[in-house]
């Protein structure tokens, strides 16, 4: 637990004055995704700890360098969880990194994404100013939604100092079921289930098995299991394995590509890992070989530097937004487009 906010602000202001660039790093667990190199390394681990946690408000406020493990442990002790369940690659990762990368875990279509949960942030912008946006309340429309803009912005708009995020109650019961089937069948089942009020909180198809997680009351799970005709008990460990890329599917040096797919798509292939009710697929081939299948978009994840930035009509405005927060391009110059 350490308050290093002012030191971080001073570092940014100093680098700006001296025209030196900054690479922002937390646990460096996602360094393979992005080249955050700069003249100076800004380490958010010096600014860590839970600032305020009130279970009855469903909100936790923590400093950027807070390890996800510490945060989720504190929530678990009070029967709560982070709804976006961010990946912990190499069993590491900080809250700041989770927000800056904007990656969400297996429950994303049902419990929401990182940005859905972010309620407020404190940042240092490229001018070396400490700014607060949003807050710790559920509904807040005062000013532009800068808090959510920070999610997935990969540190280019500022250093996240702390964030308030919405948490969710841990369900009273949970069950992981499995069904042996083809990818096409799994895709069809997911499409059908999306139209029904079912207590699904995760799906994953890999190696000819569809894994499904149901969460809620015991009675609700039993009844859903019957109507979905899922009879075989699975292994709940699969969810953390898929989330953290510890599953054998992710092993080895072959390129890894993430495919974002529209809801209700009919994408199916034997050699993929398909999660999020069919809306996210992982492929062990290069992004340019994945194609823009089914109106989705592919992102190179491992194996080569990612090309995250869409080169469409938004590019001009994205540059200007970046300049609005960081006029001199102090942050993460390795990511500049």
């Amino acid at each position: 637990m350490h308050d290093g906010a002012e030191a971080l602000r001073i570092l940014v202001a100093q680098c700006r004055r001296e025209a030196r660039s900054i690479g922002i790093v937390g646990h460096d667990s996602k360094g393979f995704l992005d080249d955050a190199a700069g003249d100076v390394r800004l380490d958010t681990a010096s600014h860590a700890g839970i600032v305020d946690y009130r279970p009855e408000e469903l909100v936790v406020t923590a400093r950027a360098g807070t390890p996800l493990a510490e945060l989720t442990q504190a929530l678990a002790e009070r029967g709560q969880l982070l709804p976006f369940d961010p990946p912990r690659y190499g069993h590491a990762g900080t809250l700041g990194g989770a927000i800056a990368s904007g990656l969400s875990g297996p429950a994303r279509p049902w419990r929401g994404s990182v940005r859905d949960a972010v309620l407020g942030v404190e940042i240092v912008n490229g001018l070396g100013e400490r700014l607060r946006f949003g807050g710790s309340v559920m509904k807040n429309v005062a000013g532009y939604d800068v808090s959510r803009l920070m999610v997935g912005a990969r540190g280019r708009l500022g250093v996240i100092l702390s964030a308030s995020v919405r948490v969710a109650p841990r369900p009273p019961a949970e069950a992981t079921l499995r069904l042996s089937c083809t990818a096409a069948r799994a895709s069809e089942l997911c499409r059908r289930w999306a139209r029904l009020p079912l207590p699904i909180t995760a799906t994953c198809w890999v190696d000819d098995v569809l894994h499904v997680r149901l969460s809620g009351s015991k009675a609700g799970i039993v009844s859903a299991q019957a109507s979905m005709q899922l009879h075989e008990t699975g292994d709940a460990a699969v969810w953390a394995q898929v989330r953290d890329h510890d599953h054998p599917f992710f092993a080895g040096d072959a390129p890894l590509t993430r495919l974002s797919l529209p809801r209700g798509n009919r994408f199916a292939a034997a050699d993929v890992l398909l999660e999020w009710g069919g809306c996210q697929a992982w492929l062990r081939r290069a992004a340019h070989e994945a194609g823009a299948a089914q109106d989705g978009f592919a992102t190179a994840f491992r194996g080569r530097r990612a090309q995250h930035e869409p080169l469409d009509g938004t590019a001009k405005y994205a540059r200007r937004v970046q300049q609005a927060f960081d006029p001199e391009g102090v942050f993460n110059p390795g990511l500049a487009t």
Partner: protein
Amino acid sequence: MSNDAVLEQLRRCLPASSLITGEHAVRPFETDGLTAIRERPWAVALPDDVEQVRAVLRICRQNDVPVVTRGAGTGLSGGARPLRNGLLLAMTKMNRIKEVDLDACTATVEPGVTNLSISQAVRQHNLYYAPDPSSQIACSIGGNVAENSGGVHCLKYGLTVHNVLGLRIETFEGDELVLGSKCLEQAGLDWLAVMIGSEGMLGVVTEVTVKLLPLPEAKRVLLASFRAVQDAGDAVGAIIAAGIVPAGLEMMDSPAIRAAEDFAAAGYPRDAAAILLCELDGTEEEVEADARRMQAVLAAHRADVRVASDEAERERLWKGRKSAFPAMGRIAPDYYCMDGTIPRRALAEVLGAIAAFASEYQLRVANVFHAGDGNLHPLILYDANQPGELHRAEELGRRILGLCVQVGGTVTGEHGVGVEKLDPMCEQFTAAELAQFHRLKAALDPAGLMNPGKAIPTLAHCAELGGMHVHGGRLPHPELERL
């Protein structure tokens, strides 16, 4: 170019019925839901399609004419208040539902489509659009996007920002931005978050793709009545702490209960100090389990609990809540609806303070609000015909919003800043934060002609105000030069 010449250009790209000019003709557009503030626009354009929107924006850009975009005009903060020298771009004619995708569970609609008509259109497929502002019968989805509208179910289902997957935006510079898609994730920056809630300051929404949810299998409504407001406030926190996320959790205080009961005969207990209206939804089993837990929590907070026995009773209980606003019209000539959010734990404290402020200003306040997410809607009752009452009501409102900020909340939970809350924005944000907002605006609208003067106060405005409101001898924005 002269005004007449600009009008002539507009006439050439719009059907005759889609361009309204003249003092008398533009009058229906002089205000939105914040009726105390009025201004007649120079002209009103009602485009039929995106081509016409583009043409209108091009002409305004070439002639430096400011543009105020308007949906159904139900906004409560004056966000769509026209400008005397500006064009009012009213989107109501663009009201087609373009596509319902049953596989993706999405609807793609034009901005003028009303909120409720989306749910009505997909009801037959057992789907609905979750955000349901009280004005849903009239308000447009484009307006919902501009304000990031909520409703009574947002604790569980989120705000507009959680339920919109894609947008098409026309920028003032003439670019069309296609933001989001039917995919869950966006590539690049979170443009949807930037646009949703931006009050028409960054671009014009021409298309919205919303997420549709399966209608819940079961719903149950519980009415809990309390003899002390403190108990009701505590019960709200206890329900959430118990791990229940109700679909709706609404609170009404004694003046609101009585007015609503007189108006709607909902069956509310007239002698209660406060009531909580709790709605649970989900599968039969979930609802059953949650209802049992909820009843135990409420009983522990000394509540009398009634469970609606059938659909008719459920609707009657909601009708009382939904008619709370018109009900106020019967007990006072005018009311001023506030909109602040506070942490739930401060509910009882803030309600007590509001009552104390009210007696100080010799005005009545009724509270009816979204307790589950701490979003207060104090209704300040006044009579505009009594000299000084409107002024006292506004002063009281400012005190209430100041208190919301003090306890860690915000000056607007869901109604937006518009022109109404420019002053309290100066209390909530520092000069550097406001300057950052202005730079973000300039990134999308360098000319500064999209809805100018709304949502974010200028630093000069705050400095001027700082001279009037001094808290504890500390000037807000001491870094600014005084006028």
